[in-house]
């Protein structure tokens, strides 16, 4: 591969992104850059569009306006053929693992190899076992996805995501709902995968501690915009009230505890409350 794994050319550039779902504005002029060969974490409260951002980067959704470049190619303008060629160079780890339920663990990891290469069966077997060994699940190769725990499913999905040796991996909530041991395993795997393979990693999560520990760059998003960004230390030391509330997990602040609505007194005492029935 000719590309320098940690070069100054950004891997992903997002410029003035605007995206709506129905009438709801998800991104309102969001811009950010993902450096090549580094771990970038996008954090924000639930419902801010973190997963949507990954789908926009992967070309599964198209922005209403603004541009997204991945590896120098503008995603929304690519033909289907070129978009699929780009996707072969990126892996995605879904929150649920998204393993194909009619195949064994082995077949799931072999799936992208069988679909995109004409490698002999023996070589596919060797590659699959190597990928499974890397995530510690070689012994589980004959199990079906239904027999795996949530953490194991995510590790198998990671083995599948790296099967074609991509340049970049997108992680959608990789730590959600995991016990401490499994979370530690996933954190280690993300770090190891990033360092040994020189991949660009983009994580979206709201698990502050784990994400801050492994990220080279942290981007905080809310209300459709970037609220803060920088290294973990820079973001932690930032003066933004919003960032401090999010990182400190304070229940009230710039993000209010109460969902906006009419006055509590009016709701309880006035006819408006009764009309609802």
């Amino acid at each position, binding site marked *: 591969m000719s590309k320098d794994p940690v070069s100054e050319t950004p891997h992903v550039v997002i410029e003035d992104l605007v995206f709506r779902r129905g009438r709801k504005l998800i991104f309102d002029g969001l811009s950010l850059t993902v450096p090549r060969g580094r771990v970038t974490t996008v954090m924000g409260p639930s419902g801010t569009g973190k997963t949507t951002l990954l*789908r926009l980067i*992967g070309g*599964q959704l198209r922005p209403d306006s603004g541009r997204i470049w991945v590896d120098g190619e503008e995603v929304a303008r690519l033909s289907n053929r070129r978009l*699929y*060629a780009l*996707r*072969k160079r*990126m*892996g*995605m780890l*879904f*929150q*649920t693992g*998204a*393993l*194909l*339920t009619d195949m064994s663990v082995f077949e799931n990891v072999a*799936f*992208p190899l069988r*679909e*995109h290469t004409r490698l002999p069966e023996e070589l596919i077997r060797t590659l699959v076992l190597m990928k499974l060994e890397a995530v510690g699940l070689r012994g589980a190769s004959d199990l079906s996805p239904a027999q795996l725990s949530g953490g194991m499913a995510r590790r198998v*999905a990671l083995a*599948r995501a790296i099967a074609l040796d991509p340049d970049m991996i*997108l992680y959608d909530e990789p730590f959600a709902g995991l016990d401490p041991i499994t979370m530690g395993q996933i954190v280690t795997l993300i770090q190891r995968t990033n360092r040994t393979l020189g991949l660009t990693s983009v994580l979206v999560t709201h698990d502050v501690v784990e994400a801050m520990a492994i990220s080279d760059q942290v981007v905080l998003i809310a209300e459709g915009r970037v609220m803060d960004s920088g290294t973990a230390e820079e973001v932690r030391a930032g003066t933004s009230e919003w960032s401090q509330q999010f990182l400190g997990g304070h229940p009230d602040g710039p993000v209010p505890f109460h969902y906006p609505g009419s006055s509590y007194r009016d709701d309880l005492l006035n006819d408006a409350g009764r009309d609802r029935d």
Partner: protein
Amino acid sequence: MRGATVIEFLSGLGRSGLHWLAVLGRASVFLFRVLLAQDAVVRRFRLTLAELYSVGVRSMLIIMVSGLFVGMVLGYQGYITLVNFGAAEALGGVVALSLVRELGPVVTALLFAGRAGSALTAEIGLMKTTEQLSAMEMMAVDPYRRVFAPRFFAGFLSMPLLAALFSAVGVMGGYIVGVGLLGVDSGSYFSQMQAVTDWREDVMSGVIKSIVFGFVVTWIAVFQGFDAEPTSEGISRATTQTVVVSALAVLGLDFILTGLMFGDL
């Protein structure tokens, strides 16, 4: 007050019409893309074979059992009517014509929608809910080629074969009751059947109907799975829609096709 109710009714009707137009538009685009991906049926023949087994072979039992009972009832009812006119020997023709022209394609399509159609919808809907389709797309694997095209082709091909099986077993059901239990002459049963059943007019009209029903039912089933809201309630609704919409489409199309093929409408 009354005017407001009428306006509400009309706006509701308009909303519903727009909703169904939007669904029809999405379904048409979906069908177009599935048809464009049909080369995958040959290129990925092993997948197609697996789907033929799942959709076609595994529906055979219910089709055969239903065909047998429908044929037996036809034999019994036909005999009761014909014997009044001293024409019990014509039973074979009555059973065969009823099955080949109408009951074979229609009942098979209804059973097919309930057995294979609902399974297709649920399977694809669950793949969507568990992000398997998204995962395929992100692995640069086109779900239209990998998932939809083989299933669509398998359903389309299976339906006419299952309808033929239904009619064949139904004829034997009529034979068991008519000849075995009610004493109609065996030779008359088959010779009447051969005499009154025309290959082009009767058999081919049934085959054409079953091909059309196979196409429509499979289209509805695969599309409903693809279009399902990715929740358990959404899948439940999509599965029900498959059976209900397929049944209405089959019965409506049967009337139109019968009118076109036999004229006089």
